[in-house]
């Protein structure tokens, strides 16, 4: 049992990362930021903060429940970091260190700016309504002077408020106009300016009706839409950074004097000597100097069979060391590793994707010329009929105010916020709002095999076929090891006893004395068995002098894979399978799942080429993948889905990340996206219907400020309620 305990506590302590590399020193205090998983309630906060404060040296322990971040500061040795992380693990909250952002997050800043603008617009709207409504309802009793006073006070409130709260729109409109474009913010800014200008003119010269309330109401509703949109983006960005932090990479640097020091992986320079323990990932591209064993390259190449490690072999960043300690010499720093090459391909793909035009922008292109044309026609029409300038201009301004896209501005963000909230509850992380639009249109879905359709780790095949007792005997040894084959055996055998004093021979297997007999479990070569021609991944058990027992393993399909494939077919999607693995296993998976179109031994470039071919053929392509080798393809597809267990670059490249590795969530994502698209189109319909009624009235000169206020707020509320319908439905 001793060996087992040591392995497990080692796992819980680090998760493969040494927290000391992330400690910052300041004024005698050591500070560390941790990402804590599993904290959901007041009890969790109390246990985590209380548990850490039991140590007198801890000065500060504060958990942010929304983001799962724990800020920790203590007096003294940075090496205590590992103790605190271990303590959190014991409390039941696994924690990973991460590096906080150096500069303030621009999305968060923007979010706060919009919230401030919204607060000011809301304040101004409420107070001006107070004055406007008393003018509208008391019009007959109220003396001219009193009305004039009310208007002047309104001006005093609205003009500064609009100047402040309208800035996000004014700036964006100006930017668009400078490069010769027209976006939605141009008519918005124009409407606000004209409403304010007309009102000021009426207050001091004309003594007619004023639109102060309309100007701030417009801003308030539009800012709600903007804020929701930005919040969605900031949230998604935050969650994505959280995921990245979970995979924070460190490297163990072997110094010239033989000491080992943990450093962040990006500080590794070419030529550094690194120590790679069993279970660690290769931090940068490197060459093996010492040690033997096996490396799992499935995340890098998509191939499930482990690579045999020996001195002189080049290894790539992202590979997992399965057994034995290796000493590596870095061939490149992190920015020049395979990962960086992949990242370059990802960026190229993302640029192509940014050409996608969001639905709201497409609506804006149609909307702006129509509205401005209508306003111009109104001026001309009234001049022709009446010949007077003042009513012609007032009515044209009324057209611009009443058509101002309040409902249109809310139509898309309200739906997307509701949809991504629902998906979040279903375990799907949405990285951007327009990803929902793109997924809704997807008709061709491309899957990766290893780690996506399959579990990406070996499972014991035919457990009933091995002789009685052999599995339990193998499991006694296997429970002490972190090698994937050992874990597969331990999983198959379930909980049980572990053998004492198990020796792990790198590149070979496990050896122990059980009940006076020498038991060995491992590779055929090590045990002297001739089995080179066998296509299966396998391991052998030899007890004493008995005949060896063979265990076969395969990378099993995910439990919900067949269900997901069937569900996607039922939704009319074409399915493809592209894998970096050898043809045999790929064909087997394709046959089992009923995917007719499959290709094996694909390099990342081949995958991109295939996706481009599918796009050429007119398909809207969604890519589902997890490996580092999938990342460029994820970025090249119209829309992409990744899993929480996927490589960091893949999660960064994907639009959706499925939490908890449930593939079935991809079907939910598809359904919600399609539902969201329907709601958005309905909302556009509602906005159009509102305009169809309001615009003729405005052109005819029948609109009063009261009607404008009612029409604008009613249409905005209607659109929001329609979006909320999406929150219901499903479980």
């Amino acid at each position, binding site marked *: 049992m001793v060996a087992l305990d040591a392995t497990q506590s080692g796992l819980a302590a680090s998760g493969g990362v040494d927290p000391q590399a992330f400690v910052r020193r300041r004024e005698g205090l050591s500070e560390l930021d941790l990402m804590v998983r599993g904290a959901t*309630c*007041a*009890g969790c*906060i*109390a246990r985590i903060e209380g548990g850490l404060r039991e140590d007198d040296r801890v000065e500060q322990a504060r*958990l*942010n*429940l*929304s*983001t799962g971040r724990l800020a920790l500061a203590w007096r003294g040795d940075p090496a205590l970091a590992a103790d605190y992380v271990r303590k959190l693990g014991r409390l039941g909250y696994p924690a990973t260190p991460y590096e906080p952002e150096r500069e303030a997050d621009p999305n968060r800043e923007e979010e*706060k700016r919009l*919230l*401030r603008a919204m*607060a*000011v617009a809301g*304040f101004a709207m*409420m*107070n001006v309504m*107070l*004055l406007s409504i008393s003018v509208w309802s008391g019009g007959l009793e109220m*003396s001219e002077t*009193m009305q004039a006073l009310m208007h002047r*006070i309104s001006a005093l*409130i609205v003009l500064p408020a609009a100047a402040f709260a309208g800035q996000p729109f004014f700036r964006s409109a100006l930017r668009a106009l400078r490069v010769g474009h027209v976006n939605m913010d141009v008519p918005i800014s124009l409407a606000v300016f004209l409403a304010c200008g007309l009102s000021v003119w009426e207050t001091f010269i004309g003594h007619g009706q004023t639109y102060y309330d309309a100007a701030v109401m417009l801003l308030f509703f539009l800012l709600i839409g903007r804020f929701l949109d930005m919040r969605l983006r900031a949230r998604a960005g935050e969650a994505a950074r959280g995921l990245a932090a979970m995979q924070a990479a460190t490297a163990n640097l072997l110094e010239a004097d033989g000491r080992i020091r943990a450093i962040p992986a990006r500080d590794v320079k070419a030529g550094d000597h690194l120590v790679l323990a069993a279970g660690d990932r290769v931090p940068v591209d490197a060459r093996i100097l010492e040690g033997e064993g096996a490396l799992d390259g499935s995340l890098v190449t998509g191939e499930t069979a482990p690579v045999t490690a020996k001195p002189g072999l080049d290894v790539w960043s992202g590979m997992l060391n399965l057994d034995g300690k290796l000493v590596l010499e870095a061939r490149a720093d992190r920015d020049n590793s395979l990962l960086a090459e992949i990242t370059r391909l990802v960026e190229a793909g993302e640029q192509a994707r940014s050409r996608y035009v969001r639905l709201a922008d497409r609506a804006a292109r149609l909307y702006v010329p129509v509205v401005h044309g209508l306003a111009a026609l109104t001026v001309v029409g009234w001049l022709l009929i009446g010949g007077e300038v003042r009513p012609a201009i007032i009515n044209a301004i009324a057209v611009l105010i009443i058509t101002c896209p309040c409902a249109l501005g809310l139509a898309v963000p309200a739906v997307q916020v509701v949809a991504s909230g629902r998906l979040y509850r279903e375990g799907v992380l949405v990285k951007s709002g327009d990803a929902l639009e793109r997924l809704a249109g997807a008709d061709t879905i491309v899957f990766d095999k290893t780690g996506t359709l399959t579990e990406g780790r070996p499972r014991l095949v035919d457990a009933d076929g091995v002789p009685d007792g052999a599995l339990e005997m193998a499991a006694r040894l296997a429970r002490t090891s972190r090698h994937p084959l050992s874990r597969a055996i331990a999983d198959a055998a379930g909980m049980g006893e572990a053998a004492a004093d198990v020796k792990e021979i790198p590149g070979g297997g496990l050896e122990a004395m059980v009940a006076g007999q020498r038991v060995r479990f491992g590779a055929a070569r090590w045990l002297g068995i001739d089995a080179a021609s066998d296509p299966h991944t396998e391991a052998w058990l030899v007890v004493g002098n008995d005949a060896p027992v063979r265990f076969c393993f395969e990378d099993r399909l995910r439990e919900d894979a067949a269900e997901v494939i069937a569900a996607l077919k039922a939704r009319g999607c074409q399915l493809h399978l592209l894998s970096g693995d050898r043809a045999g296993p790929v064909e087997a998976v394709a046959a089992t799942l009923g995917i007719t179109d499959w290709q094996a031994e694909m390099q990342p470039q081949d995958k991109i080429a295939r996706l481009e071919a599918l796009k050429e053929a007119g398909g809207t392509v969604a890519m589902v993948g997890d490996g580092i080798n999938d990342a460029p393809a994820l970025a090249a597809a119209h829309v992409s889905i990744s899993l929480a267990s996927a490589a960091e670059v893949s999660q960064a490249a994907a639009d959706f990340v499925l939490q908890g590795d449930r593939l079935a969530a991809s079907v939910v994502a598809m359904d919600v996206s399609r539902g969201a698209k329907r709601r958005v189109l309905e909302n556009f319909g509602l906005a159009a219907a509102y305009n169809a009624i309001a615009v003729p009235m405005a052109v005819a000169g029948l609109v009063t400020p009261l009607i404008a206020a009612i029409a604008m707020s009613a249409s905005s509320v209607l659109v929001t309620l329609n979006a909320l319908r999406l929150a219901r439905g499903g479980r």
Partner: protein
Amino acid sequence: MSVLIWLIPVAITMGALGLAGFLWSLRSGQFDDMDGAAHRILMDDDEPLPGKDTKSDD
């Protein structure tokens, strides 16, 4: 109607106070952790009184 001379400034001042309060709380980071704040109110910081039976707080 002359009472309005008083009432309108009072109403607007009160609204402005609310706005200032909101902006202050936004700036001082009170909206950074909405979920945590909702739960922290349930936490019991009190220590059990000495001499009495200590109860588990679960």
